[in-house]
């Protein structure tokens, strides 16, 4: 809600879901207008009843797979941490959606662009915390230097004998979740620690594109030379005959 207020995003039209256990999860998923949602997960009964909450949004990876595959370089990983999609450069190809191992970015058909949590770069650059962190009434969300937050997460994990999620998934992210139950139980996807590509595809495509264009043009010129050779030979022979 604080996120929507800061970015002036419109509310989703939701209904009370009949999906068991998810009735209190509204909005039920990320959308181009919902960059963060909290999944409510209940389990157990009586004395073992647990009501868990999972905050779901972009993990702001250290080496963002989305940025690596974007063919137009619309995604930037800022020094302060945020991974931001530049809506003006975005062409709506959805490569980033296919690439994201956490399944975060969402495509807006009407605007032909992809949207996700940008970690409020305008706030972060001024030394403020993102809107969601400021709004959290229980201080469940904390914001700070990656090393500090990682140390805190590990300390808390040891204290509650739990788990940390996001520290080394996908070669490391900027969003750490400390839970007392396995993160998968709260709906967080299991993600590999390595990435299949660690270079930016656009850096490969651009020079290749240049070579390919040269090769195509060059071959067109060459083909045209060969195609017209008969004419030239005929002309030369014609000239020769006349003499």
């Amino acid at each position: 809600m604080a996120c929507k207020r800061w970015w002036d995003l419109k509310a989703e039209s939701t209904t009370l879901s009949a999906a068991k256990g998810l009735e209190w999860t509204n909005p039920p998923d990320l959308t181009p207008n919902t960059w963060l949602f909290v999944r409510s997960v209940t389990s157990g009964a009586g004395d073992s009843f647990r009501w868990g909450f999972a905050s779901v949004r972009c993990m702001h990876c250290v080496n963002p797979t989305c940025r690596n595959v974007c063919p137009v370089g619309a995604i930037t990983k800022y020094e302060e941490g945020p991974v931001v999609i530049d809506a003006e450069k975005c062409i709506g190809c959805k490569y980033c959606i296919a690439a994201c191992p956490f399944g975060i970015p969402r495509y807006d058909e009407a605007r032909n662009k992809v949207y996700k949590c940008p970690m409020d770069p305008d706030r972060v650059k001024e030394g403020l915390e993102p809107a969601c962190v400021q709004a959290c009434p229980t201080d469940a969300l904390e914001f700070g230097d990656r090393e500090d937050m990682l140390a805190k997460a590990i300390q808390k994990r040891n204290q509650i004998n739990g788990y940390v999620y996001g520290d080394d998934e996908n070669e490391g992210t900027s969003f750490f979740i400390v839970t007392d139950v396995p993160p998968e139980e709260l709906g967080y996807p299991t993600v590999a620690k390595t990435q299949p590509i660690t270079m930016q595809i656009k850096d490969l495509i651009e020079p290749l594109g240049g070579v390919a264009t040269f090769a195509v043009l060059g071959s067109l010129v060459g083909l045209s030379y060969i195609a017209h050779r008969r004419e030239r030979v005929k002309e030369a022979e014609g000239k020769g005959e006349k003499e």
Partner: protein
Amino acid sequence: MHNEPLESPDSGLTGEYPTMWDRRFKVVTGRAEEYPHVLTTFRLAEHMQAGAMTRNLPWLVEAHPEMFVEISPALASALGVNSGDYVTVRTARNPEGERVKAIVTERIQPLTVNGKVVHEVAMPWHWGFKGLSTGPSANTLTIDAVDVSANIPEYKVCLCKVERAL
């Protein structure tokens, strides 16, 4: 130091722990035999009071778009109800009852009162007939017996009967 609610699932308890209500006001009460379940009301974080303001804000309605009643899995299986099905909740103040969507959850557990199992259901009381999100008001069901000293009505708890609705 306990005072039993005016409508109690066990009438013996009212003798032992008398209710301190203002008898100048006429109050309609029901018997536990007719209304065997207990209704309690609760608040949500996203809505406030009768929801006149909050049920007009899209961001808040996005979080809680509809009125609901939370029932325990035990009562749900007894009634043949799943999450998302509608139930009718009746009380002595509203015998026709309100038709409300049910959420089946382990948050609600049956009570054991003097050895007898009593089912409890919980409703938020933020809905009403006008706004972006409308729905039945819990306060057509709650009891208006008023506390002797503070004049606060006993909206928190009363007896009810919950049945599966069409």
